[in-house]
């Protein structure tokens, strides 16, 4: 029996978002694409365990995240800190924001702990509910909320630092001020 084309289209329809999530996890487009491919293999091999009518994106995101956790995390530690390179991995730039501002944002996002960034992306970009994000990450809803909140607070802090440049002390002055404890 062949796979229902409607199910197949649901799977394919989730791929673009799945890829964006994978890039945020891996910090590298090539590895993200490998991860998406593995996710497709795993999902189609176990498609019987997907209940039609339930949340296909959440099902696929869960598979992808589990694969990433089990296989890629170890490798990531061996090679390098992918978090630090996340800012470099995306090539093009959305038109609606200035390039400099966008670069600042990506750099700030790259500084977040991976669990916070993951939660923020699932809720704030992928559009999952807190409940779905918690199911995907295998943790409590409260944990997801806390991670998202911390991520937003941290980003706001990081972006606030940059906005000071526009009308506050210049970088050199701030460096001196910030180093106040050292004398």
């Amino acid at each position, binding site marked *: 029996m062949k796979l229902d084309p409607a199910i197949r289209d649901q799977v*394919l329809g989730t791929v673009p978002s799945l*890829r964006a999530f994978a890039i945020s996890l891996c910090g590298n487009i090539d590895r993200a694409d490998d991860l998406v491919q593995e996710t497709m293999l795993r999902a189609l091999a176990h498609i*019987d365990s997907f209940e039609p009518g339930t949340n296909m994106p959440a099902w696929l995101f869960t598979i992808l995240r589990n694969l990433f956790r089990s296989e890629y995390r170890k490798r990531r530690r061996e090679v390098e800190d992918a978090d630090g390179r996340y800012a470099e991995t995306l090539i*093009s730039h*959305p038109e609606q924001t200035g390039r400099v501002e966008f670069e600042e944002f990506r750099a700030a996002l790259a500084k977040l702990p991976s669990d916070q960034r993951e939660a923020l992306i699932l809720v704030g970009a992928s559009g999952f509910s807190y409940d779905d994000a918690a199911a995907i990450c295998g943790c409590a809803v409260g944990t997801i909320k806390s991670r998202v*909140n911390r991520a937003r607070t941290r*980003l706001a802090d990081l972006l*606030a630092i940059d906005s000071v440049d526009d009308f506050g002390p210049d970088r050199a002055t701030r460096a001196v001020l910030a180093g106040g404890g050292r004398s």
Partner: protein
Amino acid sequence: MGERRKDDAMKHRKANLEPFEAATEQPETQDPMVRSATSPHKPEARLGREVQARIGQQLRAMYNDVVNQGVPQHITELVRRLSDQDQD
């Protein structure tokens, strides 16, 4: 006395706030400039609507940048090939 009142005020305010408050209970800021650039007495003010809107917008812009690239050809082919196979 002053401290005490402030604590009470914080508690009171907390009850009316969204879950964002949880994050501000654990200050992560070490940079003194950040403290002075915002108000240490009203941590929640740091996450004003404007900042939140900006974060949300940039996050989606970055994400959609990838989403708009669509499905890579090799993934489309893989999925079609696998879904055309007989399944046991």
